[in-house]
């Protein structure tokens, strides 16, 4: 099965440099300090934030910065084949650790010494780009919770097929193991790369192309996220000014 047809379209009808339909919403849970839901194509993620609050465990209290707890879990019905464990398996723990480090560098942690922020992201439907959706959802939820950050963290995947780069890879495209898969996360304003993870082999000559494509994908996503956050603030302002 070809990933890119002779007419230049992918299996779901997108062009190689097109991201999937992106929809997001802030403040979906009523009692969380911050929450966000987003859909990247058929991948659906829900993030919730609790904090910053007093660090519970004395061992976790850091006198100069906030402690970040991250939990990544995939609902058992999120994948085509049912998963047995939503979290606690090695992969989830590895991802949670990775996410914790990413957000540690973007959140202004020295503003909240001795506190703790709990971030929980649940993948409700997995159709490729799960880690990207996780990062994007967590960013939006942190914005909703009013946690100060240096910038948004926008994430996107990219791959190389027959020397052509494609971005925002979905599940069926990901399953082609021979193609490299790059997961990238950047701080959009400065274009600084905060996560760069590559699977499979890639010739060094193509690295620049695939990175550029990934950065462009992240920036496209940033535009949509930024717009949604602005709308959210405007709506809140409108209500507050009316009362």
């Amino acid at each position: 099965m070809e990933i890119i047809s002779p007419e230049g379209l992918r299996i779901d009808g997108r062009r190689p440099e097109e991201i999937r339909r992106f929809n997001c919403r802030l403040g979906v849970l009523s009692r969380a300090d911050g929450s966000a839901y987003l859909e990247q194509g058929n991948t659906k993620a829900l993030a919730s934030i609790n904090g910053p609050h007093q660090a519970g465990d004395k061992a976790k209290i850091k006198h100069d910065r906030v402690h970040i707890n991250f939990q990544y879990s995939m609902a058992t019905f999120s994948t085509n084949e049912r998963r047995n464990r939503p979290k606690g398996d090695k992969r989830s723990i590895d991802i949670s650790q990775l996410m914790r480090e990413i957000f540690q560098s973007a959140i202004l942690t020295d503003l909240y010494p001795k506190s703790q922020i709990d971030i929980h992201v649940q993948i409700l439907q997995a159709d490729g780009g799960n880690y990207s959706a996780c990062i994007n959802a967590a960013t939006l939820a942190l914005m909703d919770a009013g946690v100060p950050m240096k910038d948004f963290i926008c994430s996107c995947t990219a791959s190389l097929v027959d020397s052509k780069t494609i971005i925002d890879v979905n599940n069926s495209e990901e399953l082609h193991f021979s193609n490299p898969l790059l997961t990238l996360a950047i701080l959009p304003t400065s274009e600084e790369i905060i996560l760069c993870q590559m699977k499979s082999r890639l010739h060094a000559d193509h690295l620049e192309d695939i990175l550029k494509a990934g950065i462009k994908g992240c920036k496209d996503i940033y535009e949509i996220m930024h717009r949604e956050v602005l709308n959210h603030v405007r709506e809140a302002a409108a209500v507050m000014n009316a009362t």
Partner: protein
Amino acid sequence: MTIFHSCRGHGTYLQDNKLKASVAGFVEKVGKLICVKPVKSRYNGEVGDVVVGIITEVGQRRWKVDTYSRLDSLLMLSAVNLPGGELRRRSEKDELMMRQHLTEGDLISAEVQSVHGDGSLALHTRSLKYGKLIQGTLVTVAPALIKRCKTHFHNLECGASIILGNNGYIWISPLLKEDAENQTTKSDTSTLEREIVARLRNCIMALAERQMLLYDTSITYTYEASLNYQVSQHKK
């Protein structure tokens, strides 16, 4: 924006000599001070604020209080009125009696005395209007929805009293009677008073869900509008 003409306030940070916003919210400019206030956040206490708190821990000469801030607030033994209204130094006996005065789970109304360096708040209840809250209901909303007013203690015309804590914790209770100091745990709230309290609770939650500012007038108007419906028919 460069740093020459403005000062950095909350919600902003400096990068390469440029002032940037670190949260998504409203820009507030007070003279040269620029702050960005997020739409929603945990309570950031200021001296003089009235708060409603829940005791979480009884410790050495102080209580730890949950005020929905990023760190637990502290209520020192020296900052409460002794039963009987005496004025003296706190002795060891007072330390042992701490738990009898306030224990875990108790609700108090207090004022922010000072803000420590790390951001935690020191509370005091050294006034007759502050103290333990016994009969009533607690409602929690986002702190940003509480409008700053001259007073946060209101005896509403509908027949109940509310305390709008700046930290988003709101206490609704039946109208305090004359000898309010001697409130015991014995119940003497009639069904009518209870319905008023329940109605107020539902009104406040409805306003909060719609992100509307909470103050005595907005709550009273909503209450009057809700009189068309029975309490048990309310959505929540």
